[in-house]
């Protein structure tokens, strides 16, 4: 094994034929830049058992608890009208929040990556702000903006517009917490790709839109998808920010995570875990799609610069 690792450094083709089935075996000769076999085994054992305790067991527990009273109870708790309306609200929120942030991400990435202007790094930092703010504070700032005690509050209520404790507030808070996802995937990639291809397209007579659709978008499609997958997972799963603005009105302003909380606090554990299991499934699908897209991005970067990996 020690010679195999030494080879894989020396021989670039070894990198591509890497298989997952190889098992660490005691080395015949100890390589100078690797650890003794027993150290490797201990490190792998520590790392796998840490992940087992902290990741696999909680995930398994969600499904075990949901199915504790059998499949019949599981299905009937999902068919509850309040659960159903929570699912609908979650999907609607994500359907609004993700596309709006997608459009923003594309606009921000185009202006930041393709043009030079002063204050660029400040702008990038400002876009990242929502990641640095705790979920509860994210919700609170909208309560301060649009709530009954805010300066806009009386005007909004006199016009019959309700934002806080209603769906618009939930959508706004969700947009806030998923704000940077697409932009921060696109900006570094588009900066790295430069403007040569777009300039060539323009000088060959393509319009701005044509250049964007046919040159820029195909180059960034995987990164774009990656950002969409991550922001969708966060949009559907957000709890803290949405909890502050929602008002927890059953069947009306309850998203799935909030419905899980209500059921759990009523000691209706099976129903709570049943709804939670749907969210856990969403998380698993997210992870699978994410790995798939990462693999595609890796392949694309190999195609464009094969020498870099070797």
């Amino acid at each position, binding site marked *: 094994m020690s010679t195999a690792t030494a080879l894989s450094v020396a021989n670039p083709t070894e990198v591509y034929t890497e298989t*997952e089935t190889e*098992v660490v075996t005691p080395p015949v000769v100890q390589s100078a*830049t690797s650890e003794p076999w027993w*150290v490797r085994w201990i*490190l*792998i054992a*520590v*790392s*796998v058992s*840490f*992940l087992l305790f*902290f*990741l696999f*067991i*909680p*995930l398994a527990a*969600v499904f075990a*608890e949901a199915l504790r009273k059998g499949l019949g109870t599981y299905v009937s708790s999902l068919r509850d009208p309040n659960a159903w309306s929570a699912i609908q609200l979650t999907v609607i929120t994500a359907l609004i929040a993700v596309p709006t942030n997608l459009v*923003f991400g594309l*606009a*921000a990435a*185009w*202006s930041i990556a*393709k*043009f*030079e202007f*002063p*204050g660029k790094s400040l702008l990038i930092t*400002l876009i*990242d702000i929502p990641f640095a*703010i705790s*979920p*509860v*504070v994210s919700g*609170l*700032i909208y*309560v*301060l*903006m649009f709530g009954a*005690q805010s300066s806009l509050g009386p005007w909004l209520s006199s016009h019959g517009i309700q934002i806080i404790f209603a769906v618009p507030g939930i959508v706004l808070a969700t947009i*806030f917490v998923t*704000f940077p996802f697409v932009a921060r995937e696109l900006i570094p990639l588009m900066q790295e790709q430069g*403007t040569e291809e*777009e300039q060539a397209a*323009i000088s060959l007579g393509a319009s701005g839109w044509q*250049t964007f659709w046919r040159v820029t978008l195909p180059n960034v499609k995987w990164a774009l998808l990656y950002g969409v997958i991550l922001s969708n*997972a966060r949009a*559907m*799963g957000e709890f*803290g920010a949405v909890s*502050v603005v929602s008002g927890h009105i059953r069947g009306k302003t309850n998203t799935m*995570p909030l419905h*899980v*909380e209500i059921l759990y606090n009523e000691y209706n554990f099976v129903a709570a875990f049943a709804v*939670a299991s749907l*969210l856990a499934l969403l*998380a698993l699908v*997210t*992870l699978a799609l994410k*790995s798939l897209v990462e693999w595609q991005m890796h392949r694309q970067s190999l195609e464009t610069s094969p020498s870099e990996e070797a």
Partner: protein
Amino acid sequence: MALLRRRHSVLPGFGLTMGYTLLYLSLIVLIPLTALFVKTAGLTAGEFWATVSNPRVVASYKLTFGTSLIAATINAVFGLIVAWTLVRYRFPGKRLVDAMVDLPFALPTAVSGIALTAIYAGNGWIGQYLEPLGIKVAFTSLGIIVAMTFIGLPFVVRTLEPALQDLEREHEEAAAILGASRWQTFLFVILPAILPALLTGFALAFARALGEYGSVVFISGNMPMRTEITSLLIISKLEQYDTAGATALATVMLLASFSILFAINALQWWLGRRYQGGL
């Protein structure tokens, strides 16, 4: 807007996309954030200080800060081991393990909160073995640490992985030729090179733990003075229509997370300079 004067470029669309970016950023992020500071500025210094230095609130700072620090430290140690094994070794199921590291990002916090509570409760899968030993996890500060460790784990691993991949084997070979043991090589060659990434991961995990709400509230039990985190206090103040109090606490938390963000940026600047100069 004069600041944003661009250099000449043949590409179209700068005005449109920059205008939209600034408008959207202002509407969604900057103006609502300003509302927080305006509201805080409306409080007198006495009111503000009375709220943020109330004993129950101070207890919540100590708890939140302390548990976040412990969780981030646990993540730094185990995250380094996980990242190391994922980058350097091959073992069966590695790809699955690699994908699972991101689970805390993908799993909604409320779901991880109730799942961890179910496991560590007295009758749970792990809790039933710990409770006879006198270790109570659920509804104690230990439970808060468990939840914060769960959500912070990917930050350390994902920040360290690229740093470990970028390490040049030649440095380790040179150290070995010069007679260093593997442990000495790790301590004096590898660790200094990945330290900025390790610190960044630690800071990110710490920042996330400070603001965490969803996964903590279920397992913490929320007893005033003992297991009540600051985020929860903000929510309970809001529920009592004490908007001013909630705002004051939010300002404190916001300043804390901005200082961490600033520290991370300074760290990355240091990292960039080191790579340009030293290596």
